[in-house]
């Protein structure tokens, strides 16, 4: 009887240990199995979707690329400065994320404007300043029409497009996409919902712990 108790106890302990390492965030997006031969045996690796290389102008009219995000986790979204519907809510919430991780060298934020015509870098700068954002931990970027709409649809899986039937001519979703240091998608959160943004902040802490453990 006593033995049984010990066994039950040790199972419990083991389970609670595995639970901790189990809390990794899932990897999202498309995946494909790739076969590889190791010592004459075929093994199957899963290749996850990653963010393609990019190059944009930021609010300081400086070119930034995916290289500037190497070794960092980041949150991406799509907006435009004159958007008077969901953007103010999104960026009020993103400001909480910014304040929480301010000056953390492992964290960046990346907001793409979808108003290619009007949101030139100088306008993005004015917007960032009025929002209370300094430095370039939070990048506000301007790119060509194709590069922005393509990366939204194909890489971040966020719907954003020009639509003449919309009062402002532009339609987009308010997702905040969490990307890890391998440029893989690790989470998608509705940036207009305070509780989902809280979850994002918690998940970013979790992801940072995972990345720190991987580095060792």
């Amino acid at each position, binding site marked *: 009887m006593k033995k049984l108790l010990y066994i039950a106890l040790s199972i419990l302990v083991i389970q609670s240990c595995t639970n901790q390492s189990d809390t990794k965030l899932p990897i999202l997006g498309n995946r494909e199995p790739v076969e590889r031969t190791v010592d004459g045996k075929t093994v199957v690796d899963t290749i996850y979707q990653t963010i393609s290389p990019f190059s944009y102008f930021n609010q300081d009219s400086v070119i930034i690329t995916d290289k500037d995000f190497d070794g960092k986790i980041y949150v991406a979204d799509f907006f435009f400065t004159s958007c*008077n*519907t*969901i953007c*103010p*809510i999104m960026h009020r919430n993103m400001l909480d994320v910014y304040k929480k991780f301010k000056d953390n060298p492992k964290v960046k934020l990346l907001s793409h404007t979808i108003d290619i015509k009007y949101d030139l870098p100088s306008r993005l700068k004015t917007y960032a300043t*009025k*929002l*209370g954002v300094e430095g370039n931990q939070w990048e506000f970027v301007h790119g060509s029409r194709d590069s922005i709409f393509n990366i939204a649809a194909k890489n971040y899986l966020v719907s954003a497009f020009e639509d003449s039937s919309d009062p402002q001519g532009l339609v987009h979703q308010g997702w905040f996409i969490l990307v890890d240091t391998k440029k893989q998608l690790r989470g998608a959160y509705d940036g207009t919902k305070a509780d989902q943004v809280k979850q994002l902040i918690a998940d970013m802490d979790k992801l940072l712990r995972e990345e720190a453990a991987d580095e060792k």
Partner: protein
Amino acid sequence: MRNRFIYIFLFLFIPVITIQSCQNEDSITYKRYFVNGKGLYEKNCQNCHGADGKGLGTLYPPLTDSTYLIANKQKLACIIRNGQTEQITINNVVYQGKMPGNNNLADIDIAQLIVYITNSFGNKQGQYDQAEVARDLAACK
């Protein structure tokens, strides 16, 4: 025993009933304006000005400054109906943005919104009715 209960009951409830009937029509109207105004605010204004009326950086001004709202009381209806782009200063901070107009809002809606914002976020200005809004709107620039 039973009588005692009835007495206690009456003792407790008569004041409540009296107070309720004393609530005059004015305060009932005010409450209705305030509650409807809150709903209209959440739908039309909260995204920019915030649930707490604090605005957002210097992109969207706060509605928490009683001095500004009192000084500009007669302009509020015009701001809400027609929007505003001119530079304004609230509590020594300069704002220059674009507040969109709200042509879809009727005079009564605007009155309810004004009652809500001028009695929330630390403001306490009391009732403002539809007739006052109509008068203000007639004077819009």
